[in-house]
């Protein structure tokens, strides 16, 4: 009697373990996807309203945005919410174009989400890679890191 029970429990342990491991490789939960899409849409709306404060509020306090182009065009590394807010204010002076963002890929990294998107601002075009982390207050996703690849001409 005990042997079948042992086998059952061993099977149970393995049965629970396998999906746990498999889930690490799985796609993002559909609900999380919707949440990220909503956050990304709000970001674009805020950008096109030229609202630097609202944009910066979507980042964590220790967030980093890395831009692949020259610092003279507002590229380079911008660390922290304040620096990021300033960065957007400078963006608005440099480029009057509207932002368009199209999500290409989304995948989980532990409890975070990595999003790859096509982005254009006026004639500037490129890719973005963003790591979102879940924040509690308010319960939303915030940008922890963004890498913007090749936007200015």
């Amino acid at each position, binding site marked *: 009697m005990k042997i079948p029970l042992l086998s059952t*429990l061993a099977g149970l342990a393995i049965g629970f373990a396998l999906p746990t491991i498999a889930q690490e490789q799985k796609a993002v939960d559909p609900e999380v996807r919707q949440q990220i899409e909503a956050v990304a849409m709000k970001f674009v709306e805020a950008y096109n309203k030229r609202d630097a404060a609202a944009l910066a509020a979507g980042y964590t306090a220790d967030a980093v945005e890395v831009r692949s182009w020259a610092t003279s065009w507002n590229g380079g590394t911008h660390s922290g919410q304040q620096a990021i807010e300033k960065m957007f204010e400078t963006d608005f002076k440099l480029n009057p174009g509207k932002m368009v963002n199209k999500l290409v890929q989304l995948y989980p990294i532990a409890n975070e989400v990595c999003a790859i998107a096509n982005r254009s601002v006026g004639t500037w075009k490129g890719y973005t890679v963003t790591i979102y*982390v879940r*924040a509690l207050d308010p319960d939303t996703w915030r940008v922890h890191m963004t890498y913007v690849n090749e936007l200015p001409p």
Partner: protein
Amino acid sequence: MKTRLLLALVGLAISFALPTFAQQTNTPDPRIAQQRDLVGDVKALDEFGVLATKQSEAFTNNDAAAVAALFTEDAVLVAPDGIFSGRQAIQKRYEDTFQRWPFTLFNDPRECHLKAIDNAVWSFGEWGGTLQSQTGPVFVKGYCSAIYVREGDAWKIRMLTLTERPRLAPPAETK
């Protein structure tokens, strides 16, 4: 003895079950991701030092297979010339790159910041290297960022994005 084994297996089943159930529910995870800077974490820095050395050797040797081996099977490379998904596509991309622009030297990324997020790590920094062009050596540099995940005993690249200055135009076609 059997009782102990039973208890151990029950414990094992529960310990595997709990994270599984947590992942299946759609309720927000009340836990903010554990993030920490890896500066000062000697073990982590050693491991990433080994990875950086392998990366430098693979690039300096223009070995696309060795570069691809640094990535996970499902990795993504976001480069100025497009998005490359999967290890095979990344290897092909580097085969093309090395054929057109062979490296003579790849420097380890500098000003590299490493941040841990749960069981993954992301980094950003600057890289540089020397390429061989038809007119002589060209120094290139740019920014890079990566996400690393554990695979067995090693860290592998799950995502890499990088750019180079000056931009490398394809060579003129010869007729």
